[in-house]
C-alpha cells in the first residue's frame, strides 16, 4: 500500500509538471499581457512594471523562477489585485468554496443515490419515472437558471432563505442546492443503471434462494456493488465542485475561489492563472488517487498494483 501510494505520488508530480509547463506556455502565447488596457501605458512605465514583475527576463528564466517558487508553495503576487499575493486569494476564497462544495456534494450524493436506488427497485413504475424526470431536469436545466429559480421561489416568494451573501448556514442552502442539482441528477442516473445491472446478477438470485429478506438482499448484496461507478464519478466531481463555480458564486454573491478561474484569464493575471490551475490540478490528482484507493476497499477484486497481495 505504501509502495503503491508513493508510486502514485511520483506520477502525480510528473503530471503536475506537465500541467504547469503547458499552462505556462499557453498563457504566454495568448496575445496581450497583464498591463494591456484601453489606455496605453507610457513605454517607460510598462518597462518598469515588467522589470518589477520579472517579465523582462527571457522565458526560460521566468519558467525556472516560477518552478522554484511553486516548490515552496509561493504562487507570487497578483498583477491585478495590488498588494495581494495569489496565496492570499486562495487562502481567502478556498475555505468558502470548500464549505459550499462539500455541502453541495453531500446533497448530490445523498439525494442522488436514494433517487437512483428507488428508481431501480421500482423499475418501470411511477416512482422510477418520477425519479428519472427529476434527474432529466437536473441535468438539462443550467445552473444559472436553477439558481435564479431557487432564489425567486425560496427567497423572494416564500422567504425561507436569504437571497444572497455568505454569512450564516441558511445562506449556504440555496447555492448548495443550485450547485449540487446537476451532479445529483447524474448520480441518480448512474446509481439506477448500475443497480439494475447488479440486480440482474446471479448472486442476487443466490441471496434470494438463501431466504434473505428483500431489504437485507438490497443492503448487503446490491448497493455496495452498484456504487462503484458512482465512486469513480466522484473523483473529478469533487475536485470541480470544491474549487467553486463562477456562476453560482456570482449569482449568490459568494466570495469563493470560482471567480478567479474566469476573471484571471481575461485579466491576463499570469500568476493567478497559474496559481489556481496548479491548485485545481493538485486537488484533482489527489481526489483521483482517493477514488482509486476507495475502489480497492469496495471491490476486493481490484488489487492496487505495486502493493503485495493482501496488504
Amino acid at each position: 500500500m505504501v509502495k503503491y501510494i508513493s508510486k502514485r505520488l511520483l506520477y502525480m508530480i510528473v503530471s503536475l509538471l506537465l500541467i504547469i509547463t503547458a499552462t505556462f506556455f499557453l498563457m504566454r502565447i495568448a496575445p496581450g499581457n497583464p498591463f494591456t488596457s484601453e489606455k496605453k501605458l507610457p513605454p517607460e512605465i510598462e518597462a518598469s512594471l515588467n522589470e518589477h514583475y520579472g517579465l523582462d527576463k527571457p522565458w526560460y528564466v521566468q519558467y525556472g523562477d516560477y518552478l522554484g517558487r511553486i516548490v515552496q508553495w509561493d504562487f507570487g503576487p497578483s498583477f491585478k489585485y495590488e498588494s495581494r499575493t495569489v496565496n492570499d486569494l486562495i487562502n481567502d476564497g478556498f475555505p468558502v468554496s470548500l464549505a459550499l462544495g462539500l455541502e453541495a456534494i453531500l446533497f448530490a450524493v445523498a439525494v442522488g443515490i436514494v433517487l437512483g436506488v428507488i428508481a431501480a427497485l421500482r423499475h418501470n413504475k411511477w416512482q422510477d419515472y418520477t425519479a428519472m424526470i427529476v434527474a432529466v431536469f437536473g441535468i438539462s436545466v443550467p445552473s444559472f437558471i436553477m439558481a435564479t429559480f431557487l432564489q425567486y421561489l425560496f427567497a423572494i416568494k416564500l422567504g425561507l432563505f436569504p437571497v444572497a451573501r455568505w454569512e450564516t448556514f441558511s445562506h449556504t442552502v440555496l447555492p448548495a442546492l443550485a450547485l449540487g442539482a446537476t451532479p445529483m441528477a447524474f448520480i441518480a442516473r448512474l446509481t439506477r443503471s448500475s443497480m439494475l445491472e447488479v440486480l440482474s446478477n446471479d448472486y442476487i438470485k443466490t441471496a434470494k434462494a438463501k431466504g434473505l429478506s428483500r431489504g437485507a438482499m438490497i443492503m448487503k448484496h446490491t448497493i455496495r456493488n452498484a456504487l462503484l461507478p458512482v465512486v469513480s464519478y466522484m473523483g473529478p466531481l469533487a475536485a470541480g465542485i470544491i474549487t467553486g463555480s463562477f456562476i453560482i458564486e456570482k449569482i449568490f454573491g459568494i466570495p469563493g475561489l470560482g471567480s478567479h478561474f474566469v476573471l484571471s484569464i481575461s485579466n491576463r493575471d499570469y500568476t493567478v492563472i497559474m496559481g489556481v490551475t496548479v491548485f485545481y490540478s493538485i486537488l484533482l490528482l489527489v481526489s483521483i488517487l482517493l477514488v482509486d484507493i476507495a475502489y480497492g476497499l469496495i471491490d476486493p477484486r481490484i488489487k492496487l498494483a505495486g502493493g503485495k497481495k493482501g496488504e
Partner: protein
Amino acid sequence: MEKILEVKDLKVSFQVYGGEVQAVRGINFDLYKGETLAVVGESGSGKSVLNQTIMKLIPMPPGKITGGQILFHGQDIVKKTDKEMEKIRGKEISMIFQDPMTSLNPTMKVGHQIMEVLLKHQNMKSQQAKERAIELLRLVGIPMPEKRVNQYPHEFSGGMRQRAMIAIALAANPSLLIADEPTTALDVTIQAQILELMKDLQKKMDTSIIFITHDLGVVANVADRVAVMYAGQIVEIGTVDEIFYDPRHPYTWGLLASMPSLDSDHKSELAAIPGTPPDLTNPPKGDAFAARNQYAMAIDFEEEPPMFQISETHFAKTWLLHPDAPKVEPPEAVKRKMRKLSSTFDKPVLVKEGK
C-alpha cells in the same frame, strides 16, 4: 417412504410482449425422502422454470402460477406469501445454480456468504456461525477452511466455488436441494468430484435432490428416478433403469440415441433430434413433440396423448402405448441397450386422458 414434495398439475406462464408463454403446462410428480430425481430435457423445456417455481424464485410478474399445487411436507407453496417463503428458502429448500463463477457475490467474503444462512435460519451468534462455516467448508472438501473462510470468491477456483455454493445450500440442513445444472459450467474431472460430493452429502444428511441437467451421463451417475421434460410437460418418468433400458417415449429415444457412446464406431454420425422445440406462446395442437417425431401418427397432430403407466414407477405420455397403435422399433442405439425389466406390467395402463 415419506413423500416430501408433491407437484400436482402445476401450470406456470409468463406474460411477455408477444403474449403469454406457457412455460410449464400441467406437471405432476412426487419426490420421496432421500431420493434424487433428475429432470432432463433440452433448453427451453421448462426444467428451470419448474424448479424455480418450487422455490417461488421466478419473477412475478411477468411470471404467474396459473394453476395447480406444490405440496411441500403437505403444505401448498403456491399459496405462501413472500414473507413465509423467506422461512422456507435456504432452510427447507435450497438451490445450487449452474454457474459458480457468477452465483457468489464478488465483494463479500465466502465465509460471510455461508454465515448469512446460519444467522438467518439457525439463530446463531456470529462467532458460532463462523465456526460452523469453517466446518461446512471442510465438509465440502475445501482445504485450509480457516484461511478460506476469509477469502473472496475470486480467490477460489470454479470447482471450489461450486463447493462453497454447496456449503451455502446445505448450511441449514434443508430437506430438499434443487441443483440446477450444477456441473455444466465445470470441466469433467471437477464434475465427477462435485457429483461424488453431492452423493456423499446426500447420504449423510438424507436430503432429497432434484437434479436438473441435460447431461444423461450425469443422470446415470446420480439419479434414482428420471423425469424427461418436453415443452413444459413431463413426457416420461421412471426409475433410472426404466428410462435407460426400457424407454417408451420417442423423445426419450431421441435423447438416448443422441448420446455419444464409446462403442459407436467413428464412421457413424452422431444422431440428433431434428427441428426445434415449439413456441410455447402458441403450443401446438395435439402432441407438442409431433412435428419432430419420426414415429408421429395422425392422431398426434390432433389430440394430446394420454399418460400411460408401464410399471409401478414408470409413466409415459405417448400414443404409441395405446392398444391400437402400430408396433414401432426404437432407434438402433436405444434398442441395443433395451432389456426386459421384471417390474413391467403386462400391458400399459391408461392413467390420465390428455386434454
